[in-house]
């Protein structure tokens, strides 16, 4: 493998990892705070993409410039968080925090099944593709290979921005500190006057916004069709578990490992590219069951 190919694989891996990371970020945030593995996360991702395509299709048809799609992505992500994330937490999850974990997980699985059909009822079965914003940003050519600016530069920038932003938010702002306190010990937090219900609702909505944003950002690069969320959810599970559940920085590293592993596999041995994320996950979990960056939970007797 010469240097050129190495660099090409590196670029492909990074742009892929950026997208996976954005989706996994919401998943790991929700798990870290609420201890719920949200299977419906994949559906929220898909719906974020659908809403973006519908909105930008509508506004671009009115004659707006393609870059107008960027604010629309944020609007779509916010819509997913408020219109779906909020009700899911408020109407369903809130009722079962005292129930076994498996039931919580199954509730999100049920929501996933429902949302899969809702996507098809609303948007039909034909795939959508809306890439004008990506084309507007143009291409760059590296070693004779053309990349889109959107995938090679913008997505990694957004991913880095979200990582740093979320860390800053959790550590430096009051709401962030409330969230961390609730994560640490829900009862103690409540006893000092934190409204844990509101913290959970807020966290879930932020997680849902991130899922929707992942979908929104993915939408110019891929076909939007029913079922696109099912694959994404397993992949982001792999990222989150490899990193250690609830590990935000770790998720970035794990997403990079999986993204690079996959793109190098396409260059070296394409047949195993699909296997890579799961192989990495198993290998990491076998050596470090709590994930790369997770800390072993103290066992309560």
């Amino acid at each position: 493998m010469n240097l050129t190919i190495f660099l090409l694989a590196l670029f492909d891996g990074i742009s892929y990892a950026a997208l996976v990371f954005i989706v996994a970020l919401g998943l790991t945030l929700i798990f870290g705070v609420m201890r719920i593995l949200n299977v419906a996360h994949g559906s929220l991702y898909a719906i974020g993409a659908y809403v973006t395509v519908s909105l930008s299709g509508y506004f671009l048809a009115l004659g707006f410039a393609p870059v107008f799609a960027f604010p629309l992505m944020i609007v779509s992500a916010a819509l997913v968080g408020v219109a779906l994330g909020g009700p899911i937490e408020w109407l369903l999850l809130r009722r079962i925090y005292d129930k076994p974990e498996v039931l919580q997980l199954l509730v999100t699985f049920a929501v996933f099944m429902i949302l899969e059909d809702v996507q098809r009822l609303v948007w039909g079965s034909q795939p959508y593709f809306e890439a004008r914003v990506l084309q507007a940003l143009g291409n760059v050519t590296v070693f004779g290979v053309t990349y889109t600016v959107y995938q090679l530069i913008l997505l990694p920038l957004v991913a880095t921005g979200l990582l740093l932003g979320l860390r800053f938010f959790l550590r430096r702002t009051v709401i962030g500190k409330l969230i961390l306190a609730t994560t640490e010990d829900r009862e103690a937090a409540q006893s000092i006057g934190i409204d844990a219900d509101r913290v959970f609702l807020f966290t879930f909505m932020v997680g849902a916004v991130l899922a929707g944003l992942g979908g929104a950002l993915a939408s110019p690069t891929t076909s939007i069709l029913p079922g696109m969320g099912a694959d994404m959810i397993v992949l982001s599970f792999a990222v989150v578990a490899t990193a250690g559940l609830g590990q935000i920085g770790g998720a970035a590293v794990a997403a990079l490992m999986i993204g690079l592993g996959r793109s190098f596999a396409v260059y070296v041995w394409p047949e195993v590219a699909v296997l890579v994320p799961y192989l990495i996950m198993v290998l990491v979990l076998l050596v470090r069951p709590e994930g790369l960056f997770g800390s072993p939970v103290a066992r309560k007797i």
Partner: protein
Amino acid sequence: MRDTTRHPTSDSAKPGAMPSIRAILTLLGILLLAAVPFIAPSMQLLINLALAKGLAVLGVTVLLRAGQVSFGHALFFGISAYVGAFLMASLPGADLILVLVAGVGGAVVSGLLVGLFVVRYRGIFFGMLNLAFSMIFWSILEKFYHVTGGADGIRLARPSVLGMAMERAGFEAVIFYLSIVLMVVLGWFTLRWFASPVGQIFQTIKTNETRLEYLGLSPRRVLLSGYVLSAALCGVGGSLMALTQGVVTPEYVWWVRSAEMVFIAVLGGAGSVRGAFIGALIYEVVRIYASAFAGDIWQLLLGSFLLVIILFAPGGIMGIADTLIGHRKKSGQRAATAEEAK
């Protein structure tokens, strides 16, 4: 740590001198199933698929008794099915018994190997690691097309039965009654296993694992034995499913199927042996009729059904049944009601 599942104590309730309502109902249910080919022949295949799934769900149920949830048990379901299909491809006309034994053997061996790794983990990590193993196997099935047939899978030709070649109708009748017999035998065996010393210790992993260590017992070894049992049960289900369908595809191992098994286990009543089969029957009927009569929104209906069960009857169908029986027979089922009230 939160309690992961509840024990329906009813399964282990000691039968009194009189046969309990539960026993009578169980017997009636089995007889009703056995009569299906005569009273509702068009339901036979559907029920057969449900029974096969029920056996796999029983495997998941076993682990639920130890408080562990696996999101990858479709792995053993699929391994068993593929072993059968490969066997039939290399030995045309092989016997049904051989296909079943080889399939379950494959599930047991892989259960032992995977089990050696995963029994070190608990809770969400246990679930995720199982998921990872099943997804690896799924990717291999999808990828190595020239060996595995890829996403279209491979056909499992009809085996002979005790040396006789069979037509479809006869073969399906054989599989149907074989499934009922296996359901009764393995269901009974699982109940006995729960009551055995190993089974008792196994269930302690859920309530208080540390105490086991203080007693000088190895929770890992105990969990491993339960894990292998659960893999074997999934294997039986997978082989029966493959024999009934005549084709095996990677979809047998896809994570949604694993989740579906957990879903059915909870629907039936997490931890309940009878619930596994009742849950599978109800699930399959709802699913088929939803897809037949509600066209393209069957997933939505199924998801809503699941939500209603979890939110309003978290004890599952067996929980509802317990409440009903409990009202009629208060003294006999005090334990069950006490559990409900918890």
